[in-house]
């Protein structure tokens, strides 16, 4: 836009109308694109019977039930929804913090101490990225049970272990591009490795922490199969497990309440997305380039 070309008042005008048309087209497509979520949203205010008759009809005077679906949703199914939400938050937040802390330290060690152990660890991490979960599904579950890593307070170790690959890989790539001189200066000033890491290195890792954090957060929050197999499901459930149990009883369950619960499950994601869209998209981009 800043470069105004001389030979083109008409062309400019045409391009301008072209852009307006494009904007209108995209506005329509965008509305259609989020339609599924909008439909769930307005269905969550309709009565169960009304949803069964017409899923796509907007709520009217008869079918509108206010927030009663949300109230019913709290008790639908044999497990309290609030508890699933609490466990989801607990597991996600603690796992992501643990992953970021441990793998950034490991990545620093790997980049600065270039010995045989570091190299093996690094290549194993890269290797682990191409291994699908089904490969370790059964044995990992048994290992977790044996070591009592099957509770919401210990499953973080499993997430650290299985999620380490990508995190170590991304952190190592970043640390290797950081100038060594700063750490040398810190060392000359008498900083030990621990102080150097937490006072000098960690603050410089900001952007990559955001990238790794976003990727791991999206993974752990949405993960279904790992917690489903590892956790004792009678006692502990996360949101995806909760939703899957509702679907298992499809047809016998209050659809209005289900719609309300689905809205509540995606609400944290939408809030998170709206508040840090910039970081999420840049994080995804950084991760995608690595594959």
């Amino acid at each position, binding site marked *: 836009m800043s470069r105004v070309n001389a030979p083109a008042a008409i062309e400019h005008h045409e391009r301008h109308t072209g852009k307006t048309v494009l904007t209108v087209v995209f506005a329509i497509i965008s509305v259609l694109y989020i339609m599924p979520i909008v439909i769930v949203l307005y269905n969550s205010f309709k009565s169960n019977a009304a949803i069964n008759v017409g899923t796509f009809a907007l709520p009217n005077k008869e079918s509108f039930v206010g927030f009663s679906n949300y109230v019913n949703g709290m008790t639908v199914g044999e497990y309290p929804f609030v508890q699933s939400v609490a466990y989801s938050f607990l597991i996600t937040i603690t796992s992501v913090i643990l992953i970021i802390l441990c793998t950034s330290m490991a990545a620093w060690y790997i980049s600065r101490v270039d010995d045989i152990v570091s190299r093996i660890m690094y290549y194993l991490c890269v290797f682990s990225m191409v291994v699908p979960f089904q*490969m370790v599904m059964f044995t990992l579950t048994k290992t977790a049970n044996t070591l009592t890593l099957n509770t919401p307070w210990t499953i973080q170790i499993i997430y650290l272990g299985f999620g380490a690959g990508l995190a170590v890989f991304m952190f190592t790539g970043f640390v290797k591009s950081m100038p060594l001189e700063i750490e040398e200066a810190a060392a000359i000033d008498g900083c030990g490795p621990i102080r150097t890491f937490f006072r000098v290195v960690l603050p410089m890792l900001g952007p990559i922490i955001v990238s790794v954090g976003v990727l791991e957060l999206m993974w752990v929050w949405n993960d279904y199969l790992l917690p489903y197999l590892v956790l004792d499901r009678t006692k502990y459930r996360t949101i995806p497990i909760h939703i899957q149990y509702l679907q298992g009883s499809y047809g016998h369950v209050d659809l209005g309440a289900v719609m309300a619960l689905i809205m509540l499950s995606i609400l944290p994601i939408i809030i998170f997305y709206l508040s840090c869209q910039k970081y999420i998209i840049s994080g995804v981009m950084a991760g995608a380039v690595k594959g």
Partner: protein
Amino acid sequence: MKPIKRRSNAAVNSTLIRRPIQRCFALFLLPTMAAFCIGFLYPFIKGMYLSFCKFTTTSNAKWIGFANYQKALADPGFVHSFVYTALVALVSLVIINVLAFAVAYALTRKIRGANLFRGVFFLPNLIGGIVLGYIWSMLFDGFLANYGTSIVLNTNLGYWGLIIVICWQQIGYMMIIYIAGLQSISEDMIEAAKIDGANGWHMLKDITLPTIMPSITICTFLTLTNSFKLFDQNMVLNGGQPFVFQSNGTVIRSTEMMALNIYNTFYLNANSRGVGQAKAVLFFLLVAAIALVQLSATRSKEVQQ
């Protein structure tokens, strides 16, 4: 001078940086390493071993050689799931990449509201497969009820339903990568091409597409591996239904993809766990092979540029 300086540098590094960190091995590397062994390495090796065993639980394994692999490859359900997965992967690959590129191309034309549109297209990506699958399964069934059918009653509907869900979820993600690629095309090159009289089609064919080849490679392989590893959406939306009963008594779950087939082999029948583990190893080799091809494809592109 040079070699001496370098050596002393290395010596300084070694005493200043390397040795002290090495002494803190237990703090820095050990926690991740231990968790990695528990969460990945040990289960992986044990899984490899168990694929050659007959077992119902990890403690009663009995070595039987390649019998599990023979059974896995002779299982029509597994072969069907491979073909089905490949069909899903190829069709979704084409649709996702064409649409994602088209959207990215349009949104980088500096149109109004581009950021908002980008945000909308990306949103489905953040919703997990289970919730996503459930949303669509309700929508499809709400629609199909008018025609007296359901997504789980018809293999074709199940296939296209799954394609819609995958595309809806991933177009935004690939769009972001394409946008990054398109934004990296230098203004000078576009300017030069315009002066040389290139029209829109030539610009796209000769400037845009060659420059964003790396993005195309990344997106192609990402969509491919995503489809091969797909589990949650497949389980919630189709669950393998409708089932087709064979004349010899076996069942083919017609909309079952590989990951779900492996899962079902493990957990529907405890006696077929060895076969399940063998299938998992084959599945792993397949996914790893795709990743290797990708790696060499990206490498060769880097050399060219």
